[in-house]
């Protein structure tokens, strides 16, 4: 029973996964960068790029379904394909958060920001770092790392609460700040959700490696 093509297909799936994660990471980084630099065109590019993310995700899904239908994967292969489907879903949603941030950036438009961006980029850095390491853990089947990454989410949560409090103060000080503050709060919320999505990804990585179902939330 030669399954060379099957092995190649599984490896391709991993490569495709890496490719979409790279794109989503870039979009997330760019969404924050263009928010800070008030770059509308850049924000538009992020919004447009999400189409590409969705397309890549559908492509992965289609490949997974084809492999299940034609190769009847079992055991580790089945867990891998099932996890790819789940992780793709999480990554696609992270892509949506990046697009959401870019959209808010467009809404804020040319108005100056109520405060310099400090904690929001920090949140983004931690979230993107978690994504990067999760991607590595997935490729290298590193269970230890997949168990460590979720512990960093607490830093994002702490920053989110801090940003939220700070923005509330701004609103109380000057109610005309309300609209922008709510928008910035929504951006922070999106980044907080990215952390949660990466945790889900880590749970899937552990399942892929060991078959154990864990819940970090």
């Amino acid at each position, binding site marked *: *029973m030669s*399954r060379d093509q*099957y092995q190649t297909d599984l490896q391709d799936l991993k490569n495709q996964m890496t490719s979409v994660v790279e794109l989503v990471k870039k979009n997330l980084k760019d969404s924050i960068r263009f928010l800070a630099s008030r770059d509308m065109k850049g924000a538009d590019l992020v919004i447009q790029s999400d189409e590409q993310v969705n397309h890549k995700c559908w492509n992965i899904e289609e490949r997974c379904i084809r492999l299940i239908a034609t190769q*009847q*994967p*079992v*055991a*580790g*292969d*089945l*867990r891998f394909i099932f996890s790819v489907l789940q992780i793709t879903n999480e990554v696609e949603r992270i892509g949506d958060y990046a697009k959401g941030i870019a959209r808010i950036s467009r809404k804020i438009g040319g108005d100056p920001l109520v405060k310099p961006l400090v904690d929001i980029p920090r949140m983004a850095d931690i979230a993107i770092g978690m994504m990067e390491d999760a991607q590595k853990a997935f490729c290298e089947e590193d269970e230890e790392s997949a168990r460590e990454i979720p512990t960093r989410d607490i830093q994002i949560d702490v920053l989110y609460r801090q940003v939220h409090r700070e923005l509330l103060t701004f609103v109380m000080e000057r109610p005309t700040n309300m609209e922008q503050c709510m928008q910035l709060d929504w951006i922070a919320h999106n980044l907080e959700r990215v952390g949660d999505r990466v945790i889900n990804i880590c749970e899937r990585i552990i399942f892929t490696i*060991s*078959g154990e179902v864990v819940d970090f939330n």
Partner: protein
Amino acid sequence: MEQIRLETSEYSLFYRDFRALNRINLEIPANRITAFIGPSGCGKSTLLRSFNRMNELIPGVRTEGSVLLDGSDIFREDVVHLRKKVGMVFQRPNPFPKSIYDNVTYGPRIHGVRNRSQLAQIAEQSLVRAALWDEVKDGLNKPAMSLSGGQQQRLCIARAIAVEPEVILMDEPASALDPVATIKIEELMNTLKESYTIVIVTHNMQQAARVSDFTAFLLTDEQRAGNMVEFGTTSRIFTSPTDRRTEDYITGRFG
């Protein structure tokens, strides 16, 4: 806790000096379907045939260890009596060149049933259980050989259950059948397990995954003796096997 129907303990089988099975320890739960999987020559059919002592027909065979049916040593039992309790269905349908009715009533007659109405009742009951009755009830005197392959195999199952066995051994029962006939046999197995303990040897991994409740994976060692590598619920074996060799085999990386 599952009730255990068949149990092997340190069971080995030799063809003269050659050890074909190496110290197999296995518990087969009652009223469940247990599948034996493994590459060709790993001893799964030999193990299956041990349960009704079919291997004894081969010259030079000897065994070590024990095989228990409901706690009793099968080697101390009268072999005809044992085979009444442990029936067998083979890879290729092998009906006798007789009528459908004669095929099903053959076993009960051998075991002394003479009453015609009782025989007719056994025939109907067995054919109903084998999901063949509706297709043959109007032509019970037709030759068994006139049936299709799938029907012949269900007739062989009816013939096996006509003597009210406890266990039905199936050696690749669907490998000579088309997909539709295969599904019928698989559905039938699922119904039959309510009354019987079924042990099946199959090369078709998906079939094992579809029909069985428990799976045993066998593999030959360096001396070409069959060893049992892993046994567990089918759902576990096919999602998270514990032994690397099981994983490699069921995912098609060797074999």
